[in-house]
């Protein structure tokens, strides 16, 4: 237990919701808000807050556009976000194997 460096964990991915968001985005080209809400199973407000944090960290990119005159927000995982999730999984596996 003592030889495991807990500082290895990425601060942004300390939240399970943010981990779930990045995991949901990793296997899609891009996703809308409702899809993420369905995958992560949280409230609109909570999801928005966590998406903002992921955007600030550069893990998720957001694109707003109009489809059939309706505003549409799409989210995409960035390369930085993909790397962070992979690293997070590696650390979790190390902790399990310890």
């Amino acid at each position, binding site marked *: 237990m003592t030889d495991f460096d807990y500082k290895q964990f990425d601060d942004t991915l300390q939240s399970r919701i943010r981990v779930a968001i990045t995991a949901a985005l990793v296997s899609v080209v891009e996703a809308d808000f409702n*899809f993420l809400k369905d995958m992560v199973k949280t409230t609109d407000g909570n999801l928005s807050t966590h998406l903002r944090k992921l955007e600030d960290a550069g893990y998720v990119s957001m694109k707003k556009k109009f489809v059939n005159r309706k505003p549409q927000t799409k989210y995409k995982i960035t390369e930085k976000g993909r790397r962070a999730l992979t690293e997070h999984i590696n650390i979790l596996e190390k902790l399990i194997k310890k």
Partner: protein
Amino acid sequence: MDQQRAIEEIALIKRVIEESREFTFNIGKNITVWGVLISIAIFASYAAIVTGLSRMDVWIWVVMIGAGWTYSIVTGIRRRSETENFGIRIISTLWTSCGIAMTILGFAGTTSGAIADWAVAPVLSTIIGVGFAVTSMIQKLRWVMSVAIAWWLGSLVMFLVKGYETLPIFGVMMILFMVVPGIAFHRQWKNKQISPETK
């Protein structure tokens, strides 16, 4: 974070990735609409031939294929606003490519004389079989592979039968292996949407 929490988090990541990969759109409606439209065109063409009105009424096909493409384009534009994963992208591209290939073969192939009118049915059946086979693999639906095989077997039968008698065979196949699977796809998709496992 302790080991138990790490195990739980890995399980969460795995579940979300799997659910996200399995997310799909409802291809059932598109398949059903195309199946109904082509069935109408087939039986109308056959009726025109039997009654001696014309050999192959091209206009019936123009109207039905035009209606099919209009429907697919409109629903495709609407779907652009939704989530897209790689499976959805492959299935959309696959069926669009099959549709383009069939439209070219059906119109340019026959009007140029390169393909005999009656031979269009077995040729198109082989292409539809490819569409269902790839869909079966992507969506992990074994029963859809049986539909693909049925299309290929039907194609062989029609090549053996030859002549305009292939049309009623093609029409029945269209209902059994396009409209019926389309309805099944739609039902399966709807059940998945309301299943508590996915919520």
